[in-house]
Structure formats: C-alpha cells, structure tokens
C-alpha cells in the first residue's frame, strides 16, 4: 500500500515535468544504445579477427622438433658427472621430423574426451619452379575431411573445390599469392622440387586465401598421400597432429601432458599466439570505457533533473513531511523517479541497441582478405545486454541517490518558515 502510494506520488511528480524527464530518459537510452552497438560491433570485429587466426590454428600442435640432445656423452663420464661441462657447437643428430608411433597417439587422442578432434598434417619445404626461377614454398599435406571439419578449410578455398584434392591424384590447391607469383590458373600443371631434390608435377585444382598475405604467398595444400609421395615416404609419415579441444583454456596444461605422454613436442595456441589475445582485450576494454563514459554523462542528466525537481517541489516535500511522510518515504519517492527514468531509458536503449546492431549487421562489407565475411560483423552476446542494463540501473541509482538523500534530509520547518 505504502509502496504503491510512493510510486503514485513519484509518477505524478514525474508527469508534471515530463519533458525534462523524457530528455533524461533519452540520454540514458542513447548511451545504452551506443554502449550495446559499440560492444556488439567491437565484439563482432574481435570474433572475426580471432576467427581469422583461431579457425586456422590448432589448439595444440604435436610435432617433433629437431634439436640437440640435452645430455652429451661427457656428462656420462664418471669423472665429469659432478662438473659443469661446456660443449660448444653441438649439432643435432640425423633425426626425422616424423611423429613416431603415430597409430598409438591417434588412438589415445580418439579416446580423450577433452578432444573434439584432430587432423594429421605433413609440412614439406619445397620450391615452386617457374621457368628458370625457384620460389620458396611450403606444401601442407592434409586430411581434407578432417581439415574441413576442424579448421573450415573449404571456407578459405576461393576457387575450385577442396574435395578435388582427394579425387584427383597429384593435385594441389595453391595459395592465392603463390598462384599470382607463378602465373598459374586452375587446370595448369605446376612443378615443385622438394628440399631433397625430388621433382613432381602437380595439377592445380583450386586457390585458397587465408586473409593473411604472408601465408598466401608461400603455402599450398595437397592431400596426405600426394605429399607423402612427394617426400618419398610411407603412409605412416606424419609430421604434425593438430588437436582441437572442447575447452581452449585447457590447452597449455594439456600440451604439457601430451609432451610427456607421447614424448613429442607440443605447443598450445596461447603460447603460439600470445599477442592476439592482448589485442582483443584492449579493444574490448576501450569499448567498455567509451560505453561507461556515455552512461555516466547520461547519469549527470538524471542528477540535474532530480536536483531541479527537488528545488521546485520543496513545498510539496515540506507538506508531505508535515502530513506524515517520513524522510525515508521522501527518499524513496525521488529514487523511484530516478529508477523510472533509468529503467524506461535503459529498456528503450537495449531495444534500440539491438535494432542498430542488426542494421549494422546488414551493411555490406567486402574485403578480399576475408572471403567468408559479407556484412559488417556484429556480436549479439547477451552478456553485453545484461551489463548494459545493470550499468543503466547502477548509474541512475547513484544519480538519484544524492538528490534523494538531500530531499529526505530537508527540514520542513525551514521550508515553511521561508515562505
């Protein structure tokens, strides 16, 4: 009863100054709209940029690195075991890049339920022979189906068909940059030479474009079999296992675990791309800062109108108190006004933010480096809306808090004497 009465009084005061309250509510609505749009847009952009990398990057990569053995013969000599031995210019022994016992590793990964999937890969250092010149290159031998499923390979194939790698023997999909530098078209034959001197003629069945020029200028894709042939290796020759996990954050721990378990080298995505996360974080931080600044400015609008109302309605406050409303009641009345402005403004802002986001989502955005993106990317993360709503409430609460407290502390005797 008392609460309803307070709402009614608040509403009556609010309606008496509806133009100013509308302006204050529009201020809140505008800032929430911008907050949502900004975060949605930045979030979309972040997702796109992350996707550019994350889609193409395994969460854990297992491989064999050629490196010098850590224990040198001198350390095993009885007389030198207690010494610190310096051995200069250590060379690695002739080790292969292959992951040993690949079948057992694959079986273990299949049984690990933290793993979404994995795709084997072979990287082969090659030269593309164009007339008399040789261009540096890298052929990735891939399992096309696995690569499609885990790393959306076919999204990046801008011409031709990724499945042709399996059906057409000795076929290759060239990086867009490679194709440009070697003047090849689909259907042409390109000659490649491996670092061991083997030469092969491969049929170009498509182009791919990752969006990262440095990659597109060097890399090409072929099937596992074609690459094993090229390397003159057997079917068990695999140099990389690319693992995708359910939970990205577990990657560093699991990489260490696999390193021990399979005695291979393992690198997790966080270690491999630490600079990337920092960029996303900074962009998000800036969006939040701008959004919250807008909200605070809008909060001052509410603060102003409430202060004005309190001076205007001093007589009303005095008589309410004289007729039995306590300071607490008066406080609630003005807080109620503030929150009404905040809530209506906030909800309008959230709806308009959603609207503006979907408008941006429709604007065409074509860039050659991002073949999968057709319109501006927008993220509709409900989290943004929740945070926006909560901030609107908090801001209006604080904007209302001080004027309301002032009103509740007003002494009716002073006001009545002032007449």
């Amino acid at each position: 009863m008392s609460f309803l009465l307070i709402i009614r009084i608040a509403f009556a005061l609010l309606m008496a100054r509806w133009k100013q309250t509308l302006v204050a509510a529009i201020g809140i609505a505008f800032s929430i709209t911008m907050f949502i749009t900004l975060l949605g847009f930045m979030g979309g952009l972040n997702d796109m940029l992350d996707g550019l990398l994350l889609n193409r990057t395994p969460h854990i990569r297992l491989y064999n690195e050629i490196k010098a053995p850590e224990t040198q013969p001198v350390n095993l000599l009885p007389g030198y075991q207690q010494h610190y031995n310096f051995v200069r210019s250590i060379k690695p022994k002739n080790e292969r890049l292959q992951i040993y016992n690949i079948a057992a590793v694959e079986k273990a990964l299949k049984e690990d339920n933290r793993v979404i999937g994995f795709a084997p890969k072979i990287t082969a250092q090659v030269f593309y022979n164009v007339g008399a010149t040789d261009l540096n290159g890298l052929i990735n031998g891939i399992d096309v189906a696995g690569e499609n499923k885990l790393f959306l390979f076919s999204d990046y194939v801008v011409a031709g068909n990724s499945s042709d790698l399996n059906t057409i023997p000795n076929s290759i999909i060239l990086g867009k940059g490679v194709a440009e530098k070697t003047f090849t078209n689909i259907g042409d034959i390109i000659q490649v030479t491996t670092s061991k001197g083997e030469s092969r003629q491969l049929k170009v069945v498509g182009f791919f474009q990752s969006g990262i020029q440095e990659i597109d200028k060097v890399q090409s894709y072929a099937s596992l079999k074609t690459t094993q042939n090229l390397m003159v290796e057997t079917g068990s020759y695999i140099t990389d296992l690319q693992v995708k996990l359910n939970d990205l954050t577990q990657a560093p721990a699991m990489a260490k675990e696999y390193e021990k378990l399979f005695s291979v080298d393992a690198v997790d995505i966080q270690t491999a791309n630490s600079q990337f996360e920092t960029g996303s974080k900074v962009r998000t931080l800036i969006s939040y800062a701008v959004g919250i600044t807008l909200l605070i400015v809008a909060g001052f609008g509410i603060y102003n109108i409430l202060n004005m109302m309190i001076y205007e309605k001093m007589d009303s406050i005095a008589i309410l108190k004289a007729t039995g409303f306590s300071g607490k009641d008066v406080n609630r009345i003005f807080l109620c006004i503030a929150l009404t402005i905040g809530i209506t403004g906030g909800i309008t802002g959230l709806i308009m933010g959603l609207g503006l986001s979907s408008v941006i989502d429709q604007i065409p955005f074509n860039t050659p480096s991002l073949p999968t993106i057709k319109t501006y990317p927008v993220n509709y993360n409900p989290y943004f809306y929740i945070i926006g709503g909560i901030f609107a409430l908090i801001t209006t609460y604080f904007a209302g808090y001080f004027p309301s407290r002032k009103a509740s502390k007003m002494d009716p005797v002073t006001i009545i004497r002032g007449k």
Partner: protein
Amino acid sequence: MSNATVILEARKISKYFHDPLTVQVLNEVSFSVNAGEFIAVIGKSGCGKSTLLYVLSTMDTDYEGNVFLKGENLKGKKDTELAKIRNNSIGFVFQFHYLLNEFTVIKNVMLPGLKKGEFSEKEVEHRAYEKLRILGIQDEALKMPNQLSGGQKQRVAIARALINNPLIIMGDEPTGNLDKKNSDIVFNIFSDLCKDFNQTLLIVTHDMEFAHKTQRIIEMEDGKIISG
C-alpha cells in the same frame, strides 16, 4: 478542568537559535490542552508563536523540555515514529495552503489517509468527500488546486488536516492570507468542528476578533506565556 482529558501538554519548553547569535526564543513554556478545547495563541510578531507550534507538532525536535501527546513523551523519538504520529494524530494548517499541484483536490485530501493505510482507497475517498462536504467544497473535488480561490484552497488544506481524524488541529495563522469574508468562513468551520465533532484546535493568529471568538486565549511575549 482537572477531570477533562489532557490531549497535549508542554512542559518547560525552551528553544534556542544559535545563528548568528545564540538567542532564547522560548523560555520554559508550560501549558496543556484539553480535549475539545478551541484555543487561540496570540502575541506580538517575533515572540515565538510559530516556533512553539513547530515544536508541539513534532516537526522541530531541537528543544529542551518535554512534549506529551495523550500522555506519550515525544522526546527522542525517531524520524519515522514522529512522521507516524503527525500522520495519525496531528492535523496542520499553515498560512499557505501547500496543496500539491500535481493532484486533484480530492487526491490532495486523500494523501495522508492513504499514507496511514488504515482504510482501503475507496473508504479513504469516501471519507475525503465527507470532509469536503463538511467544509462546503465537495463540488470542487475533481478540480486541480490552481483552479480554486484562495479561500477554497485553505478549506481544502483544512479538509486534508482532518482526513485522519487527528487528536488536535494546529494552525499557524490559517486565516493570515484571507480576506474578512473568507476568514469568517474558516473561523466558523473551526468552531463548528469544535462544537459538532468535539475537535481540539490550537490556532496561532494575529486577528484579535478571531481570537476573542474562541474559548481560550494564550498570550505570549518574548518566548513566555503571559496569560491563558
């Protein structure tokens, strides 16, 4: 007098203002008001009448001495408790009407009743119409306050003071802003309330004619009661 019920009692009330200099405005004022009495408080301007009324009405809590309302000491009570006492037991009429311009006349009268929450809104509305009828302004119920004359506004303010059937009505120059005709109307209303409903009234006034028509006159000078 000894067998009548005491509604309000002031015991040795002193009040000081400290700004700019410490001055004593009330000096050990003691008196009591019996049920059904219609009292006028008179005295020269600045003698402390309003100050006394604010103390008695619980709006001013910064005083020495004690105020008893129906035997209950009001000293040291919390803001919310005092608000409740004002709501239930004290009706106040000021020189200025202090109606809320955002509400209709009837809603203005109803507000303290709704705050009390004793009766349903319908019942409060019914009672408010009843008060307006007693004051002869029931036809103005749905108007906004700014559509009324000064005398009508003051009568609405009296209706508002009456809505919760207070133990006592206090007035600080309630006819101060009114012409002779309207002053008489208001006086007649007060005296009818006293006669017909045994309403207790304590009214500060400068109008000697008004004062002499009441049952009892309390005269003040320099913060003291000199007669009554």
